[in-house]
């Protein structure tokens, strides 16, 4: 993508900016309101409210409506577009991220419900410029074709290892069943997951 060219991403960000500026202007008043909430336990929202999300080790203050999903907050507010919106109803796994180390569907998670938790996306897996071993294993095993499902597959696979699941082939297939690959790269995905887990 060359600089100076008009891209879909740049268009979307340009359109979204006024909404962001509007949200920032509201923040001081709403932050005060939230302080009161902690005492009387009244609901926050439905208008945008201050929500702080910890994503990939960085704390991000946001102004978002309570109905914003974690997926939309990541993609549309934080620009972390590695996490994909596939079905948007918990069936395809393209939106898989790790919340406190556990793999979840970010499309069925409210961002506001993630306050106080640690979110890790595909962008947060590499450390000090080195790919996460699971990312490297996917490359080594040629475990993708179009790549759309890959960030979700990799986050799910990292979660699988965190959960200490069996790495025999049937188990890996079952444990990766929440991630659909329409290209059908499954045999190589299974190989990559097993290799990264030390089973092959």
């Amino acid at each position: 993508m060359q600089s100076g060219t008009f891209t879909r991403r740049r268009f979307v960000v340009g359109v979204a900016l006024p909404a962001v500026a509007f949200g920032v202007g509201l923040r001081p008043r709403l932050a005060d309101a939230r302080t009161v909430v902690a005492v009387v336990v009244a609901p926050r929202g439905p208008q945008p409210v201050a929500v702080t999300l910890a994503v990939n080790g960085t704390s991000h203050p946001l102004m978002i409506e309570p109905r914003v999903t974690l997926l939309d907050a990541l993609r549309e507010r934080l620009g972390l577009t590695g996490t994909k919106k596939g079905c948007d109803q918990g069936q395809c796994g393209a939106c898989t991220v790790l919340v406190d180390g556990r793999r979840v569907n970010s499309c069925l998670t409210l961002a506001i419900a993630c306050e106080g938790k640690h979110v890790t996306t595909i962008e947060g897996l590499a450390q000090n410029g080195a790919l996460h071993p699971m990312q490297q294993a996917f490359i080594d095993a040629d475990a993708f074709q179009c790549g759309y499902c890959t960030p979700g597959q990799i986050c799910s696979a990292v979660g699988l290892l965190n959960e200490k699941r069996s790495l025999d082939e049937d188990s890996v297939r079952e444990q990766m069943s929440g991630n659909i690959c329409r290209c059908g790269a499954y045999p190589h995905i299974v190989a990559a997951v097993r290799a990264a887990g030390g089973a092959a």
Partner: protein
Amino acid sequence: MRPFGYVRARGADEAQRLLAATPHGAFLAGGTTQVDLMKIGLAAPTTIIDIGALPLAHVETLPGGAVRIGALAKMNDVADDPTMRAAAPAVTRSLALSASPQVRNMATIGGNVMQRTRCVYFRDVSQVCNKRRNGEGCSAVGGDDRQMAIFGASPRCICVHPSDFAVAMLTTDATIHLLGPHGRTTIPFGEFHRLPGEDPTRDTVIGPGELIEAITFTPSTLTRNATYLKVRDRTSFAFALVSVAAGLDVQHGTIRAARLALGGVAARPWRAHAAEAALVGKPATRATYLAAAEAELQAAQPQRLNAFKTTLARNAMVRALALVGGGAA
């Protein structure tokens, strides 16, 4: 999703009071049902009360030996719990065979028993549905009824309940613990879900402002000798066409006690009372299992496209019983 306010409850009593005081409030636990329903226009609460942080997420053994599953325990955590795996393998297996790993990491036990049907007509707001608005009709009757009920349907609703866990729990004689406006009450697990009858809008007998706090059961020889068999269109991440939870207490070749339940066949988890009655006191043999399955299926009333479920249920019951009772399938 329609806009809503959000509040995080700090304790079960506070959560219950918030719900009781909120005219169009709804609890949010794991979100896999609630957020989904809000997205497809089947739920539009004005306030979401997040109960995800309440301290009800543990499995524990109580003094006296009963096991208590906190309502906010995640499906995966219960499936992996060593106490549960020994005390009720049918239950842990039912959870491991449910949904996807991501959903099992999110979804809670309380939410699982409260989930709505996956009937395609219920989920499509362009179709009439008595479960959404009683009296407007049922699109499944005379429609694509392959997935629908063979037991307990009414002319108003022929959907099936989607839970695996709730089917397996019917083998444990469990108790549901509720916190409501009038304090704490209990209800037998088997009386919690209801059939559609004249009012399909209500899936359960839970009252207004009530919160599930926990489910308890007492492990026994039978719950330890139990299994869950799930038959579905694909190997993983699919709802049951038919499932069977079976638990047997066999002494010297004779069945002393039996619990048998079916999933995917009715609007509620289906306890197979007729089959159980045909098992107790009989030898643990294939002939006994087959006779019991056929006794249960006397009451089956298939729809146009799902007569196969009757055969499937018979074979699945026989196989599940053979797995726990021996006597060869």
